[in-house]
């Protein structure tokens, strides 16, 4: 049997290269109208009065008064309205849609809408906690009481914008009472459930389809539900097809971003110079509404000891609400912030104690059988030692770090170690998602995969087909996997949290084995599988005790940089990575994830600056918000380990997020090595380096 990791051609490349692939903005429907959003120009205010101009025939205003159901976007809490009613809570909050045939006339109408506000003092500080979590392992109080020395540091991280190259978009039409929405989305069923709720519709009155998605990175996880709700309300009233596409500036100003975070770390050092205890206190800025922020916070907290085992810990944190754009899902989901802090802190502890950083880190590196930060267990083999050695060998790390430290020549190399919990945190998979997958074999013996997983570039259309074809030993083109349509596919859950291959792919593999057993040539057969949590996984959601994740992927990133001694510009010299993703379903696809993920992670660490001044995003186009270009990227070398996970298809674990989360600490450590100053904040911009050189 051939090795599943051997790469095949991606099934969707050809149509993307010829320009035939239809993204949402490319879809045209006869009689289609356009929609544009009218937004708040205040960070916090009471809406006193709205004066509309004369609305020409064929043009429409849709606002909260048109909503049949309860006015909120169904995500987790009932807090974010679909259209603002009496108050606005952030600059850019949607108030209404203006809809019609001609975009120029729509713009005209919008410029003549007068909204009278009574301003209220907005809150931009972290004082209003909406969610607070706290947990312990071991006895950190004792460790701190007996400590010979306590080391403290503060770390902070900025916003990061997903910057998928395709902006957000959605198009919808209505047939009778049935609303259909086609969008650039990651989670068809999130959208469907939100629309059912806003319309108070029946299950069969809402249909959601995926268009080709031009990148998402978490940015199209929960945000599209808001657009879908607005459009659905409009469709019910106007009864004509409507298209809502954001322009880049609008997208960057009002869509969810990675949460800025502030992390305070303390370590209790005993008289043997050991780290006896650790505490972490985390604050993340949720923006105006909670959305997914609580889940982001919990992933951050659980990552508080990174790839290390520390016996006594106390971890806590808050989601603060501010009058700023709501933050949300972004590849890594809280882990990038925390892993930056952990990796810097352990390095800083070593410096403080005058110990060799590598030795100190190796001493605490997690091993199979160790207790996780939440008192769960690392059940599967951890092969980090081999990975670290491999990475150091590939990059010549040891020689370089020695040379650069001694010579002070503005060159540096940094290495990060990390893990990423695969799938939903805690019991999310078993209690909330309950994924269902189906396979349908037709009389012509073609097999259709019926799942709600979205290919947003990460290649699942190819990898899922490979899994099925390989198990059944049939050619790839005998397997069909169309873009999900909620009328046709069951709810296999959202395309998030590095769960798609491991969890959904695992179910698809099981269903395929079932089909193989029942297979009769020329007969139509349907099989299905539903997720069952392994018995040994136990999780206490309220106290953060137990196995937060069923499995972990592991990684090592090494980044080499040069810093200009004059301008303090950082240039990337080389990037090396070693990953344990269990087993790659397609090696080239994983390599693509690896390259793209790390550049996004490294960009977060040194290049991508987004600031918010008095509630307004200042970097709202690609001229101001700089992401890496071909000129910034560096040669990359990636090595994949084989360490099959028993419950993943062919041993596969999560991969999509793992490749991002270690990028920022690796580049920050490299810069630290180059300038010989402690880095405590990302992005490490030339301005920040200058400040460190002066005062650091």
């Amino acid at each position, binding site marked *: 049997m051939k090795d599943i990791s051997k790469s095949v051609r991606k099934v969707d*490349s050809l149509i993307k290269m010829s320009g035939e692939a239809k*993204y949402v903005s490319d879809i045209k429907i006869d009689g289609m109208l356009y929609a544009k959003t009218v937004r708040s120009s205040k960070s916090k205010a009471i809406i006193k009065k709205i004066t509309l101009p004369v609305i020409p025939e064929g043009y429409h205003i849709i606002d909260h008064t048109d909503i049949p159901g309860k006015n909120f976007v169904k995500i987790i809490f009932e807090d974010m309205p679909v259209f603002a009613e009496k108050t606005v809570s952030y600059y850019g909050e949607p108030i209404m849609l203006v809809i019609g045939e001609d975009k120029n006339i729509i713009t005209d109408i919008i410029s003549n809408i007068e909204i009278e506000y009574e301003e209220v003092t907005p809150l931009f500080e972290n004082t209003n906690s909406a969610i607070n979590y706290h947990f312990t392992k071991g006895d950190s109080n004792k460790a701190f009481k007996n400590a010979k020395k306590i080391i403290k540091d503060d770390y902070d991280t900025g916003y990061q914008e997903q910057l998928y190259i395709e*902006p957000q978009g959605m198009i919808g039409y209505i047939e009778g009472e049935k609303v259909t929405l086609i969008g650039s989305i990651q989670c068809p069923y999130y959208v469907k459930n939100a629309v059912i709720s806003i319309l108070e519709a029946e299950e069969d009155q809402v249909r959601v389809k995926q268009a080709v998605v031009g990148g998402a990175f978490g940015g199209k996880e929960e945000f599209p539900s808001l657009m879908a709700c607005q459009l659905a309300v409009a469709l019910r009233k106007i009864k004509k097809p409507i298209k809502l596409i954001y322009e880049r500036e609008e997208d960057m100003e009002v869509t969810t971003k990675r949460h800025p975070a502030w992390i305070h770390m303390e370590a209790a050092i005993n008289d043997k110079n050991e780290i006896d205890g650790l505490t972490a206190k985390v604050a993340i800025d949720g923006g105006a509404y909670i959305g997914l922020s609580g889940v982001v916070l919990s992933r951050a907290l659980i990552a508080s000891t990174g790839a290390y085992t520390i016996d006594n810990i106390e971890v806590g944190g808050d989601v603060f609400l501010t009058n700023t754009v709501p933050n949300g899902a972004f590849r890594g989901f809280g882990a990038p912030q925390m892993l930056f802090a952990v990796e810097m802190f352990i390095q800083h502890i070593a410096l403080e104690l005058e110990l060799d950083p590598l030795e100190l880190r190796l001493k605490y590196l997690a091993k199979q059988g160790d207790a996780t930060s939440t008192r769960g267990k690392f059940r599967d083999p951890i092969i980090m030692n081999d990975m670290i050695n491999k990475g150091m060998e590939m990059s010549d790390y040891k020689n370089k770090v020695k040379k650069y430290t001694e010579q002070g020549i503005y060159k540096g190399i940094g290495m990060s170690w990390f893990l990423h919990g695969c799938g939903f945190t805690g019991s999310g998979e078993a209690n909330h998602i309950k994924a269902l997958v189906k396979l349908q074999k037709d009389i012509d013996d073609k097999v259709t995969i019926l799942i709600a997983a979205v290919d947003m570039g990460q290649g699942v259309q190819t990898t899922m087909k490979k899994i099925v074809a390989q198990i059944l030993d049939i050619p790839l083109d005998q397997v069909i996997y169309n873009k999900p349509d909620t009328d046709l596919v069951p709810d296999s859950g959202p395309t998030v949290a590095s769960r798609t291959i491991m969890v959904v792919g695992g179910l698809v593999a099981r269903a395929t084995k079932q089909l193989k057993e029942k297979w009769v040539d020329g007969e139509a057969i349907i099989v299905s599988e539903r997720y069952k949590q392994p018995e040994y996984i136990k999780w206490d959601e309220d106290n953060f005790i137990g196995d937060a994740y069923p499995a972990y992927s592991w990684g090592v990133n090494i980044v080499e940089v040069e810093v200009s001694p004059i301008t303090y510009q950082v240039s990337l010299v080389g990037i090396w990575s070693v990953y344990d993703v269990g087993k790659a379903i397609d090696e*080239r696809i994983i390599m693509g994830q690896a390259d793209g993920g790390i550049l996004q992670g490294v960009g977060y660490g040194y290049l991508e600056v987004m600031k918010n001044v008095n509630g307004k995003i200042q970097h709202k186009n*690609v001229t101001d918000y700089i992401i890496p270009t071909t000129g910034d990227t560096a040669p990359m070398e990636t090595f994949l380990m084989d360490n099959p996970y028993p419950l993943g298809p062919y041993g596969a674990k999560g991969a999509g997020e793992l490749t991002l989360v270690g990028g920022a600490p690796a580049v920050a450590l490299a810069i630290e090595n180059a300038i010989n100053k402690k880095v405590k904040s990302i992005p490490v911009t030339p301005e920040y380096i200058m400040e460190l050189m002066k005062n650091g």
Partner: protein
Amino acid sequence: MAKIKFTLNNKVVEIEESPTARLLDILRDKYDFVGVKEGCGEGECGACAVLINDKIVNSCIVPLGTVEGKSIVTIEGFSKTKRHEVLRESFEEEGAVQCGFCTPGMLIASESLLNTNPHPTDEEIKIGLSGNLCRCTGYNMIIKAVKSASKKGDGLW
């Protein structure tokens, strides 16, 4: 409104439109060449790239009036050529396509680069593609693909 005549994917066309209309909108809305993508609308991402008289131009910042008498090739036109076929092969083999939204622009940029420099070095490829943003790939697979196309397509450019 003005009458503007130009060659579009090897066909002479004439359109009555405002000369200040964005070429990008005309290509997408009037001619249905939706392979030309809008990523930023301000000339910074390269998703809307087309060839005008064989040179790469971001169509979102081109007023229609300026293309009078010129020859425009979009990804739809370019994809019918042997050179696209060579690039396509290389992009597939190297895994240079993920979400694909930047891909038409990347291919147009590669064509434009190879037209002026059929055997670019890695550094020259980086410069040639530096106006095209990709958020998925980290660029290396794209750079390798262009390199390999320039070898395989020797003589075509």
